């Protein structure tokens, strides 16, 4: 089971570009459609849990599926398979790039790429806002969060913790009143 999961995740990790979300459809095809390790409903639950838990979605999904399919060995295989290609590819690039960095050509190329990277981080915001079903009144939450981090230099960790604590507090008041 270790090798099966390792191999499956290694394939997915090597051939998906665009991060964790891009991996999900491939994981579904491989794990649900082809191998039949878990069913459609459990897969959807898995996505919900992998997103709710902290950490990387790709890694969280590997842990879940590894555990459901092959216990401890499954987890080890899936996580190792999901992380290893990334790790090796980046390591190779980092080693080479450290020597190329000073070349004027490389610097010119990266001058073009840097603003594109910022755009690529910012652009999915539209989609995320839609998926989260944000309204005009709830729009204040991401705005305050972004301003606190950007201009207030508040560590994002505190913003996350504050969100959790304030929400629990407000829901608690509402629940008490309802009873």
């Amino acid at each position: 089971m270790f090798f099966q999961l390792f191999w499956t995740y290694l394939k997915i990790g090597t051939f998906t570009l665009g991060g964790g979300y891009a991996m999900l459809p491939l994981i579904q095809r491989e794990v649900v459609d082809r191998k039949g390790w878990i069913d459609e409903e459990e897969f959807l639950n898995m996505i919900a849990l992998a997103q709710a838990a902290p950490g990387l979605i790709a890694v969280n999904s590997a842990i879940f599926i590894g555990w459901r399919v092959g216990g401890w060995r499954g987890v080890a295989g899936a996580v190792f398979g999901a992380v290893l290609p990334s790790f090796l590819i980046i390591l190779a690039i980092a080693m080479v790039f450290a020597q190329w960095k000073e070349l004027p050509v490389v610097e010119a190329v990266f001058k073009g790429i840097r603003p594109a990277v910022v755009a690529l981080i910012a652009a999915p915001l539209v989609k995320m806002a839609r998926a989260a079903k944000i309204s005009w009144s709830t729009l204040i939450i991401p705005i305050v969060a972004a301003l606190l981090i950007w201009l207030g230099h508040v560590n994002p960790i505190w913003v996350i913790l504050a969100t959790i604590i304030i929400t629990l507090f407000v829901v608690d008041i509402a629940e008490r009143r309802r009873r």
Partner: protein
Amino acid sequence: MIYLQLFLSFFKIGLFGFGGGLAILSLIEMEVESNGWMTQQEFVDIVAVSQVTPGPIGINCATYVGYTIAGFWGSVLSTCAIVLPSLVIMLSICKAYFWLMKRFHGNPYFEQTLRMLRFTVIGLVASAALILIKPTTFIDTTSWIIFVLVAFFTVLPNIIKNKVTDFLSHPILLIILSGIAGYFIYR
């Protein structure tokens, strides 16, 4: 000592990083900045490479930052450290899966917290982008033109959905095109 610092930083990032890779970038950014590990420019370049290489962006970024700061063992350490909290938390979730599904499905505390976190995560991603808008990354008007064009093509499939707009919105294609543009403009 740098190893311990690196481990603690990425462990924290793994522990509090809600919302996946893009949201985690803002956490990595903050750790890198507050520890004075590298310049913002170096960080943007790492994010660029993380986006065009296969695999989860968070792992790519952790490996690269770790390597830049402390070499091979730095990259091993930071990658392990970002995965470790997931391992503990996700395994506990798996063990209690059926119980959790019954207990927390429809629980207002749980569901509302998740809903609010989704909003906060949008702010986190926005801040990751905002922090990077600096004279070091946006050197002239051309930078802004590239920014606007890339943003436009990325959002386009949300407005007009067809094969052409889908193709043009691909992040890797856009990064390669921007690199080519940079080569001809800044050479």
